[in-house]
């Protein structure tokens, strides 16, 4: 068993990476929006911790800066913005439970296995001690994508998107000891701008369809919507209307 031969710091790194994967699962199956935002903040904090530990273990100076940047941005600023957003949208008590939680979780587990299988040839190349984390980060990306598929609520989908970004960042840190600082700053700025734009979009979506349930975007034309509404309201009263119709016809005559 070669895990024992690794220094304690690198073992700690593996524990942190495993916890990042766990927060991904928490995020996926969290029904309450506020708790999901907290889980996302934890994930950001853990990714920042991984970056910090890689910086200490590999002694690469600019990683300290990107750890700090991640901590401020992903664990504090973006969760705070999301919090403010859902308070203004009055979604604090919003609960959206998954329809088949066990199946959703099992698919996520399959995604983890798939990403491990995908990364296997790379692991055998013996690149760096962090190479095992690449599989984890790929799994985090895929689970974020899966979250965007299974969730109907726009804010939850944004959380999935942001956790995909977390996974990509983790992959960059673990595979190549971090991107150049310019790229990192650019990505951080992009994420921030995306967050602001998402906020604007939320308000737009809610203004046009009165809800943030993205599934309702399928029924955009008003006629279809009205028909659906008519069918809905008419369905229980149908026998009534059938008997009433001859009378109405007579009256018209």
């Amino acid at each position: 068993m070669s895990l024992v031969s690794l220094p304690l710091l690198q073992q700690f790194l593996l524990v942190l990476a495993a916890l990042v994967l766990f927060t991904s699962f928490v995020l996926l199956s969290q029904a309450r929006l506020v708790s999901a935002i907290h889980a996302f903040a934890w994930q950001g904090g853990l990714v920042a911790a991984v970056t910090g530990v890689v910086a200490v273990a590999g002694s690469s100076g600019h990683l300290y800066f990107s750890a700090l940047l991640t901590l401020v941005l992903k664990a504090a600023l973006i969760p705070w913005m999301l919090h403010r957003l859902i308070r203004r949208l009055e979604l604090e008590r919003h609960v959206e439970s998954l329809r088949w939680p066990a199946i959703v979780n099992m698919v996520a587990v399959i995604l983890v296995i798939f990403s491990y299988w995908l990364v296997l040839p790379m692991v055998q190349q013996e690149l760096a001690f962090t190479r095992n984390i690449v599989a984890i980060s790929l799994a985090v990306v895929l689970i974020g994508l899966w979250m965007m598929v299974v969730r109907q609520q726009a804010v939850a989908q944004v959380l999935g998107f942001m956790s995909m970004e977390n996974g990509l960042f983790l992959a960059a840190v673990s595979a190549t000891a971090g991107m150049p600082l310019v790229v990192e700053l650019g990505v951080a700025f992009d994420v921030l701008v995306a967050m602001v734009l998402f906020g604007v979009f939320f308000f737009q979506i809610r203004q046009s369809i009165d809800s943030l349930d993205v599934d309702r975007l399928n029924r955009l034309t008003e006629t279809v919507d009205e028909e659906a509404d008519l069918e809905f309201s008419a369905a229980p009263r149908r026998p009534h209307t059938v008997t009433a119709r001859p009378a109405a016809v007579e009256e018209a005559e």
Partner: protein
Amino acid sequence: MDHLLNAAAPVAAVLQAMLYAAAAPLLVGWIRKVKARLQNRRGPSVLQPYRDLRKLLAKEVRVAHTASPLFRAAPYIVFAATWLAAATVPLLAVNLPTAALADIIVLVGLLALARFFLALAGMDVGTAFGGMGASREMLVSALAEPAMLMAVFTLAMTAHSTNLAGVIDFQLSNEFALRPSFMFALGGLVLVALAETGRIPVDNPATHLELTMIHEAMLLEYSGRHLALMEWAAQIKLLLYGTLIANVFFPWGIAQSFAAGALGMGIAAVAAKLLLLGAALAIGETVLAKMRLFRAPAFLNLALLLALLGLLSHVILEVGA
């Protein structure tokens, strides 16, 4: 010396089994005491469970006239199976003669046997509560067992053995390593233990409220020494899970030889670990509220997920490293 060892080993094994039966009520008393203190009550003495057992053992047995012989036999089978299961879990020392039996899958099987007879006895008299309790117990255990086995497999894959003594030996003989897989397996096993021993998020051991009880519902028809045996078995089961968690994940201090000093050290270490664990359980039970029964599957799904993540993180992070 070798001769002495051979003579001491069976004595230690018997001592350990006796200690399980003797210390189980004490752990329950300790948990109740801590819980009472946390609720600003003085609470009964730590020895109260012993007094309850003595009182029940002295009382007359009343059996419903619809009961079959199985109803009379079940307490003895449940108690024996649980006690045997407990005797396989190393409490004071590893490498006991019972270690050959101490396979984790055997342990799960023995506990399943006890549960099977408990559920049968619950349904035997034909009262509504007995059947309801039995069906709930089976719901919980059907979901808890895969999670427990998955957690156990995580340990087995790391230690290359499904033997409990083997796992503990592996932990002690290797240098300390932070293992993400053990962390997740520990989480999963704690959740399973809470569900299986009927503690608060799943079942409330202190209530006789008919709509919520699981374990108590099956025992409603029992009285006298039958009830004493059933309750004693439940207490031993709690001690068993506590020891399993304490000794498999934190084995430091357990005796590896049968010298008196090492055994004394083993007793002190396991007592300290169990006191801590009991206090943690009491705090958890004070902080948490009991879940609705239909939330229990979600709770156990989390246990299964944790155990699965343990298995996966072993494969992904630890084997390749």
